[in-house]
């Protein structure tokens, strides 16, 4: 255990299955003191249903970037756990998140992915709702429902929503803390790349969406801080010279936050000046002025920052000198990636490139190209990760495997080779190859699942 992990004043990962023997007989991986998660959590239908109930109905969930719906009437349709929702901008300009279901008989109200509409009309009996969720039209309502019919009682159920640097989140839990409090100290780090421009952020290419076979938690696990897989799963990327600054001499940290969020960050070892690789040098003074001195210390010389907002939003920031194709400008790619569990074995994913809103189109295009080639739907970096997730699912449905062989998360439980180079919030552990973040994620997950 590192000094940081043992600090009683800092949040600590609990031991998960440590005190729960998997079986009476010796079982590979189920050793005393081990941080192990039973494989049934990665394949079971009952476990998936409990996740929706215990986690997704109560967490702040990411849905869209504000720039996807810039005009009154613009909307996108998305998922909150298993619930279909409409994210719209009302005529007054407010962002609304509403259940996409007619309050009469429950038909899916809006079937399109994107669009612009002042009203949504149900295709079954014609009930019509304004884009702020109010019921405005019921065919023959005075004749058939009477004069006392109260339309206000039949508006669409609206979620609490809030926006952080252009990112729209929502929750149906009235008792959940405010979004800013939910993000907590993670905001300090997110603002290192979301807060670099006074113009704010945008998602200039919108979202792209795909399905894949695999359990959603494996994405969270991977992005939460898996530095261990890089040199193996993505060995081809290193061998072919595609990993850019991550292939140099680096030092890194893993950080854990309240509510289950995590972050892993690397920088070029020994960086002593305020440098922001990937960003146009004429914007560096603005970046330095907008970030706090502690944020500048943390972010200067960054080679990669990635992590998760619990439970199902990942983010990754990577600068790239020279872009991806020869002649492309430097770029810093920020991808947000949402993974919705449509079942224990199937995940619906959406990805966004998020950029400083006022940067040059050429810079944004270079960042987008980098995202497509590294973390796009057909990028081989992603393909190799997804292959592992698919193959884990293939074996985790086996009865003996599911019940007897846990997934293990013991890596580097007492290993912290770096002194963190900055003074930042959260539980900062001086290592970038560790499963401390995964332990943190699964500890939070198991706490909620077993409450």
């Amino acid at each position, binding site marked *: 255990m590192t000094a940081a992990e043992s600090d009683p004043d800092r949040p600590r990962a609990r031991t998960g299955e440590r005190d729960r023997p998997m079986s009476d007989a010796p079982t590979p991986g189920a050793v005393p003191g081990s941080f192990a998660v039973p494989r049934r959590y990665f394949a079971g239908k009952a476990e998936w249903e409990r996740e929706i109930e215990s986690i997704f109905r109560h967490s702040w969930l990411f849905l869209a970037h504000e720039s996807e719906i810039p005009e009154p009437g613009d909307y996108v349709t998305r998922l909150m756990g298993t619930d279909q929702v409409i994210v719209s901008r009302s005529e007054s300009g407010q962002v609304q998140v509403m259940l996409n279901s007619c309050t009469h008989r429950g038909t899916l109200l809006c079937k399109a992915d994107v669009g612009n509409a002042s009203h949504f009309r149900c295709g079954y009996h014609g009930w019509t709702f304004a884009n702020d969720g109010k019921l405005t039209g019921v065919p023959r309502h005075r004749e058939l429902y009477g004069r006392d019919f109260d339309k206000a009682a039949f508006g669409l159920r609206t979620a609490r929503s809030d926006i952080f640097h252009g990112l729209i989140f929502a929750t149906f839990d009235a008792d959940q803390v405010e979004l800013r409090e939910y993000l907590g100290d993670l905001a300090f780090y997110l603002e290192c790349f979301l807060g670099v421009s006074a113009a704010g952020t945008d998602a200039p290419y919108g979202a792209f969406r795909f399905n894949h*076979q695999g359990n959603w938690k494996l994405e969270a696990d991977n992005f939460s801080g898996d530095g261990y897989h890089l040199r193996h799963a993505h060995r081809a990327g290193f061998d*072919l010279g595609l990993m850019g600054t991550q292939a140099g001499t680096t030092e890194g940290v893993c950080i854990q936050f309240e509510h289950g969020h995590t972050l892993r960050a690397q920088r070029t070892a020994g960086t002593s000046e305020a440098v922001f690789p990937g960003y146009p040098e004429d914007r560096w003074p603005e970046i330095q002025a907008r970030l706090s001195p502690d944020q500048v210390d943390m972010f200067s010389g960054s080679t990669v920052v990635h992590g998760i907002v619990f439970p199902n939003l990942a983010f990754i920031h990577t600068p790239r000198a020279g872009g991806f194709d020869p002649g492309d400008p430097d770029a810093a790619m920020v991808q947000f990636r949402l993974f919705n569990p449509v079942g224990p074995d199937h995940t619906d994913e959406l990805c966004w490139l998020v950029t400083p809103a006022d940067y040059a189109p050429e810079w944004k295009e270079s960042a987008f190209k980098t995202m497509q080639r590294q973390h796009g739907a057909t990028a081989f970096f992603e393909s*190799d990760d997804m292959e592992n997730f698919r193959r884990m699912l293939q074996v985790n449905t086996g009865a003996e495997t599911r019940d007897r062989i846990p997934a293990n998360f013991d890596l580097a439980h007492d290993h912290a080779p770096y002194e963190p180079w900055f003074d930042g919030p959260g539980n900062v552990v001086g290592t970038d190859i560790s499963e401390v973040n995964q332990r943190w994620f699964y500890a939070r997950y198991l706490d909620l699942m077993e409450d």
Partner: protein
Amino acid sequence: MFGMPDLSPEDRAVVDFAYRETHLLNADRFAEWITLLTDDFEYRVPHPELRDDPRSSPYSATSLLSWESVHSLRVRFDRLASEFAWADRPPAFHRRHLTAVRVERRDDASWSVACDELVARSRTPEPPQLVSALREDLVRLVDGELRLARRTVFLDVDRPDLAQIALLF
């Protein structure tokens, strides 16, 4: 143009080119296929997006599922030849079927080529996939040889599974 018997010899050569380069992809002869690309070749798969109005395009004007260049394709093929192409070991069964190849001459040295394409892919544990798409190409004469300059793939799938877009179309 569907009247294949009426094709000029030049247009006929462009149709033959489409079948030949597709055969190279089917045969995994990527080193030969990549020599048929112009230096500025781009491969794009626009993101399918359902809109209510049938007059609207069902594809995003900005977002892509895939965007490749000669450089990035060369890297992809180098990876396939390496020991570390995890997602492609073992390789999938696959085949591209072209139908209704239409060519339209743009000028003395370039053609628009469109075809309907059905791509079959199968490898356990993914279920067998059949994906239909409209494939639009730009073919140019470069030093007297036909070369592929641009390929845009319009999927007939609104929310593809990764297994459906793992292959080049």
